């Protein structure tokens, strides 16, 4: 069996969730008979990886560093295979603005949006264009950091008066902020595993918004899997998820979040390249509904990574070709 380093924790705002995902993955890997080493990612990551010489890294690192391609880049340099998507797909997905531009260009439905940096407001007078922005997007409007995986910093502005404070909040987490049309509807997550969509999970929140606590607390959100949707809508959601997964160049696994509005129209919000693996996470639930038990899910992800040769041989270097899903 293999020596597997599980990368988890780190400094992101999703540290706690990542530690829980990591611990659960470690359990599964041990049951599978691997030699497992959990690494709480810190300044000494490279040194520890050099000492450990793992056959493969399992990435359970959510949020910044883990999902934005940073750690993937480092592992490419070190020549260690790792689970999940490569560098360029991580960059495209973790930047929600970039991902949405790709979607718009490819004709995939995503809520209308505008994105700005803090500099635009502080130095270019972008505030003077707020009226036009609000007219284009309309209310209620979602204001959120462009690269934050959790719901922290997300606000719903119901009128123009709410926008400045919402922007101040969102800019606390990121230098780039997304203002997006709010689509009222059902919260769907479609996980894509090895190029195929898994059964759809619907998250039914107890409160007003699907907030940060509700997402990770047992009993705060009711999950329905497979979601009770008309066949045509479910088929379309799965089709869209696979299309987005491929469009953005994701590899092995991803979780695509969508909204289904009252007319049954679907809107893609974002793609997560390192979906949560906690007890309440959506990917494991979806896999389970498809008859793929947690251990098998983990085994498949590790096997996929091990099957890849270290991609140091890449000639031009920094990122893979776009969009080039391996399968």
């Amino acid at each position, binding site marked *: 069996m293999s020596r597997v380093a599980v990368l988890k924790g780190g400094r992101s*705002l999703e540290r706690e969730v990542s530690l829980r995902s990591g611990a659960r993955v470690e359990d599964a890997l*041990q049951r599978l008979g691997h030699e497992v080493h959990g690494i709480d990612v810190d300044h000494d990551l490279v040194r520890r990886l050099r000492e450990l010489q793992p056959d493969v890294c399992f990435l359970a690192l959510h949020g910044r560093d883990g999902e934005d391609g940073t750690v993937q880049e480092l592992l490419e340099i070190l020549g260690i295979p790792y689970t999940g998507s490569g560098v360029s797909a991580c960059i495209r997905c973790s930047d929600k603005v970039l991902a949405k531009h790709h979607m718009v260009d490819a004709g995939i439905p995503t809520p209308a949006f505008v994105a700005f940096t803090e500099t635009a407001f502080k130095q270019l007078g972008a505030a003077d264009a707020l009226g036009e922005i609000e007219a284009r997007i309309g209310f209620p409007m979602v204001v959120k950091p462009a690269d934050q995986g959790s719901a922290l*910093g997300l606000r719903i502005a119901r009128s123009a008066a709410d926008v*400045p404070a919402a922007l101040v909040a969102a800019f606390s987490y990121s230098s780039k902020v997304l203002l997006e049309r709010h689509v009222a509807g059902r919260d769907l997550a479609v996980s894509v595993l090895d190029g195929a969509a898994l059964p759809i999970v619907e998250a039914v929140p107890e409160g007003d918004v699907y907030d940060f606590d509700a997402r990770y607390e047992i*009993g705060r959100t009711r999950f329905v899997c497979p979601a009770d949707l008309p066949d045509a809508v479910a088929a379309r959601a799965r089709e869209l998820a696979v299309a987005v997964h491929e469009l953005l160049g994701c590899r092995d696994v991803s979780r695509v979040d969508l909204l289904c509005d009252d007319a049954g129209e679907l809107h893609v919000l974002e793609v997560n390249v390192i979906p949560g693996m906690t007890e309440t996470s959506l990917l494991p639930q979806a*896999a389970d509904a498809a008859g793929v038990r*947690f251990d098998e899910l983990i085994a498949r992800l590790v096997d996929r990574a091990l099957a890849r040769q270290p991609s140091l041989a890449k000639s031009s270097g920094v990122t893979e070709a776009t969009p080039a899903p391996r399968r």
Partner: protein
Amino acid sequence: MNRPPQRPASSDLERYAGLFASRTRQMKSSAMRDLMALTERPEVISLAGGLPDTSTFPAESFASIMARVAVDSCAAALQYGPTEGLGLVKDAIRHVMAAEGNVVDPEDILVTTGGQQVIDLVCKTLLDPGDVVVAEAPTYPGAVPTFCAYQADVVQIEMDGDGMPIDALEETLDRLEAEGRRPKFIYTIPNFQNPGGVTMSLPRRKRLVEVAREREIIVLEDNPYGLLRYEGEPLPTLLELGGGDYIIYLGTFSKILSAGLRLGWAVAPAPVLQKMNLGKQGADLCTSSLTQHFVAAYFAEGRWEPYLESLRDLYRRRRDTMLGALAEHFPAEASWTEPEGGLFLWATLPDYVDTTDLLARALQRDVAFVPGRGAYLDGRGGSSMRLNFSGVGDDEIREGIRRIGEVLGEQLELFGALTGRPPGAGAKRTPPPRTRAADGAPEADPELADVLHLPRPGEQRSRRGAGGTR
């Protein structure tokens, strides 16, 4: 690294969720948990903790006291003790309470595992699900999970610079009574309130004990910081003013000796204390005998008062350092309380600043505080923060406040750019005058106030008041 094997767990959620008691639905994990997890990184200057500085306790004293406990009381220190606590510890408690003017009978004392256990036992003894508890706003964030676990309906009374206004309390009690709801107890921290940093005035204390007696409602007087007064005259406790009627007093060694010992106590009317004793038996049988013997031996040495004096000197200096740094680095739109003692002050920012988000930004500069929302049960407090001045040294306090001021300035600048309303022209507050007017508020020239965005005289109270007065 070997973990015990587990069953496949993808469907654990449904299985376990079905087993949870309904009260766990009220046991919410803190909204800030994931942010607060990041405050524990070693490089972070944390003004977030509620920590006393235990580094000043002499290691030699610790060693010699432990050695004496081991030699003199080995078997007893390793044994169960009585639920109500050791007599020797009750002697020490009477000593400490006498220093604040309270005379208590050992029979009326219940030794507990930290002051926190008193809050839990009071809830356990008095509350049925849905019962009303009246608390201050803001209130001690650590009491909130306890209230929630007992499914209390918490009603909060907004404080000002003199603590909880009793007229507002009485109005609330009248309203509740009209609704057929009678509160079981009123929870207050009269001295240097956590997190507000304000102290309840003497007239209010007198009126509060009258209200408790007239309406036959218990007051839970939480007094962890009473002996940590850095200026001004001590005020009598509610226990003393009320002669014990309808008062449960909570004391602790956490802030005058050690929080790690987990040793506190309750003084309560006999019928209440008996029920609390039974509740404690169910919780932990007795408080650690080892801890109790340590405290008894420490007090037998008779050096607790000089040590307390050294803590007061240390914390007084740190408080002044923080107040000076706030005046230098916080923008004119901010206000804060100036506590006469305790460990905390409470700063309030313009209402468009959310301190949970501000914390995320502050953590990028390696500094932390407690966002104010945790001190309210109704979602208020979002623009306030609790700052602790006892846990870290002067240099770190100055640097920490400088960094918070910096990120705050950035948010204000951004808001100004977004709304076309430049914040306070970026002006730094001039240090407030240390002299005080007769009413206790710092003197300020009303004309200067217009120029420099100093609080107007009418606003001075709110500067000294706790949150919500922005």
